[in-house]
């Protein structure tokens, strides 16, 4: 026998799990249908916005990897996820240069500042969005009609605003779109279902909300599609289903309580679940593994709190939408939640488990035992 070259490693010697990069890639797969639907809904403006924001996040990630002298991490797809998610939360007519700024902030302030993947405290995409919400309050609340007739041929006028320029007023364009509509009932009022409810007291048909026949941010409107895409990740065991479920449960319960108190003033719980960014936030933002608790009880608490905050902000805050701040708040609370939801370790005293009463002090032994002995 020839002298073998043996490899020295520590146990375990077998390993089975998708790698981080594989998980991230699957999240991208799950988001692609949403992006496709967004483009179908809002036309080339949405496409341009998605591409711009992703390019921005990828370039920023590369830039900081180069500046810090580390390996470039864009291959793990996490920066692309941030870009894609961020684009899906912006209004479709959002000026491209502002989208690029949002992407830069998301990666620079939301991710690399904390040390890159795995170390960010907040969801980077939401950091980017929170920044542009504060910096460009008008543009981020300017909505454009879905399924506008010429959406595949021309950009929404605000999309191509020059950098550092204020976008043009969209009112004349929206009037023009409305005048081309065959059915005047569908005329666009410039409000999302949430805003329509909050400021005008108008509710939207549940079926339209489910199928995404409404306007809103680029990728948040098709509730059903979001759920299906989320299911893909759950089935592949790449997402913790407990998070979206508990977020939605938290929102539903809070909304139900408010609705029962005063059904005139507060919307019905189903509308709350399906409108605005709650579904996208619950399924794809709140469930981003980094920045969420790892303990089973913590996950539940985290989700319920996000749902609760969302409804509270929507109902009592100045803005019609509260998902973003609710999730950021949830991220911030994660270390605290984890600290008091540590799981009960095997063998720790618990009252309801039957234990034989002992006379001696635990730990006294006949001899030393090693870890190895416990498993064979």
């Amino acid at each position, binding site marked *: *026998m*020839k*002298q*073998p*070259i*043996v*490899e020295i*490693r*520590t*146990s*375990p*010697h*077998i*390993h089975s*799990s*998708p*790698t*981080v990069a*594989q*998980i991230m890639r699957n999240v991208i797969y799950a988001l692609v249908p949403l992006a496709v639907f967004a483009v179908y809904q809002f036309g080339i403006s949405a496409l341009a916005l998605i591409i711009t924001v992703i390019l921005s996040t990828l370039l920023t990630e590369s830039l900081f990897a180069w500046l810090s002298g580390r390996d470039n991490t864009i291959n*793990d797809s996490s920066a692309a996820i941030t870009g894609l998610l961020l684009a899906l939360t912006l209004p479709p007519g959002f000026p491209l240069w502002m989208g690029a700024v949002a992407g830069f902030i998301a990666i620079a302030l939301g991710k690399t500042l904390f*040390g*890159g*993947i*795995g*170390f960010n405290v907040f969801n980077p995409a939401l950091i980017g969005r929170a920044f542009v919400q504060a910096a460009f309050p008008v543009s981020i609340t300017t909505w454009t009609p879905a399924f506008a007739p010429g959406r595949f041929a021309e950009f929404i006028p605000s999309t191509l605003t020059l950098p550092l320029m204020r976008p043009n007023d969209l009112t004349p364009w929206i009037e023009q779109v409305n005048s081309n509509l065959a059915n005047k009932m569908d005329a666009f009022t410039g409000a999302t279902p949430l805003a329509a409810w909050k400021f005008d007291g108008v509710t939207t048909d549940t079926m339209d909300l489910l199928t995404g026949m409404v306007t809103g941010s680029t990728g948040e409107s098709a509730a059903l599609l979001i759920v299906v895409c989320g299911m893909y990740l759950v089935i592949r065991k790449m997402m*913790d289903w407990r998070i979206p479920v508990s977020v939605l449960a938290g929102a539903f319960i809070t909304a139900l309580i408010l609705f029962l108190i005063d059904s005139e003033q507060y919307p019905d719980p189903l509308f709350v679940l399906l409108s605005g960014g709650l579904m996208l936030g619950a399924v794809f933002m709140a469930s981003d*593994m*980094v920045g*969420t608790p*790892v*303990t089973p009880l913590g*996950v539940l608490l985290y989700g319920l709190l996000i749902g609760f905050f969302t409804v509270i902000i929507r109902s009592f805050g100045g803005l019609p939408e509260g998902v973003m701040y609710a999730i950021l708040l949830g991220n911030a609370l994660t270390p605290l939640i*984890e600290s008091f939801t*540590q*799981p*009960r*370790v*095997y*063998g*720790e005293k618990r009252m309801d488990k*039957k*234990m*034989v009463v*002992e*006379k*001696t002090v*635990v*730990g*006294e032994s*006949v*001899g030393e*035992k*090693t*870890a*190895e*002995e*416990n*498993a*064979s």
Partner: protein
Amino acid sequence: MRLLQSFFAKTFAHGIHPPTSKGQTDHLAIRRMPFSPRMMVPLSQHIGAPAKVLVHKGQEVVRGEPIARAEGFMSVPMHAPVTGIVEGIELMPTARGPKSEAIIINTYQAADQQVLYGADYEWQNASTEELIQQIQNTGMVGLGGAGFPSHVKMQVPEDHVIDTLVVNGCECEPYLTTDHRLMLEKTDSLILGIRIALRISGAQRAIIGIEDNKMDAVETIRERLTEDDPVSVGVVKTKYPQGSEKLLITALLDREVPSGGHSYHVGVVVNNVATLALIGELLPKQQGLIERVVTIAGPGVTKPGNYLVPMGTPLRFALEYAGYFGDISRLILGGPMMGNTVASLDVPMTKTVSGILVLEQTHDSGKQKTYPCIQCSRCLDACPINLNPSQLGRLAAKRQYEVMADQFHLNDCFECGSCSYVCPSNIPLVQYFRIAKSVNRERVAA
């Protein structure tokens, strides 16, 4: 049927399902491995004091003859695996790393495999103390992997009462099939060994815990039991690490061994099937432990199987016999989840080696890359004792070893490897924990 049965099988919470990889050897009957021309019997193959040498250089020894005696209660004797001449007592490499003293025997060429040493023994009439002494004389240690002297394990502390003897036939490590084959082929010895252990422990009943991927063994044993037999078989789910002593107790009896405690704190003594089968075989003949069944398997061997290997056989000899040709690979003693890789082929087989695996080299460097923890919580879902490996790993990276022990139950971890197995970031969690524990031990000692 299979679905129904796994629905009823008992188990513990969490755990993992690695591919069992047992198909290579589980149908192969136990075969005897010939004697190596040179045997190295280390004096410390168990936990406790090394044995004291009884022979000298140039002395002739007979197969089965004691060649080293137990040094105190926490020690076991050694017996000559072959008939031959003592070449010397020297420091030899061991699988664990450091060199240790070993008796080297040159085998006689025409050495007989029959064991002539020993005498018939009426165990039925013996007292508990006598039986414990007899078990120590066999040199028996826990064959599951750690080598804890069996007679010490069987002796119940005075103020504890044992009601159940749990017999561990799970064999949850992938690849290994020695316990499976023993249950099929040495069923009578096993049942006899269980009856002896019942006598010593004073337990009223014995339950043999077997994973539901070994139903043939379950059937074989059940056929040999009488109607109101104190011995019964408990089928448990095939899941890693079901073979862990504490988790098997939980699965079979729904009792939880207190943290830092032992199985006798909940009225249980646990023994491995291989240990009891050999006690049942050796004790009535007053013979010593000189050989054991070892699974030699993995993609790197051409003649895989379950071999009856004499203690002291050099690893090189055993591997050559099983058809290993020295390709680049990983050599593992034990199972793939908790076994250790070996650096040298000159180490001897000892009482605690249950398997030799020759696995392919891990060459895919892309998969080897370690990422930061992304808090996916897979490790929490895998950990059988509900630790938070994610948190422990993050603390270990910051070298906060004392916090790990004080607040996050580091010392409850028995290093099963489930967390490392599922980690998408490829973080060597178990290795972190081993380092943390040993640093903490040094701090305590200092």
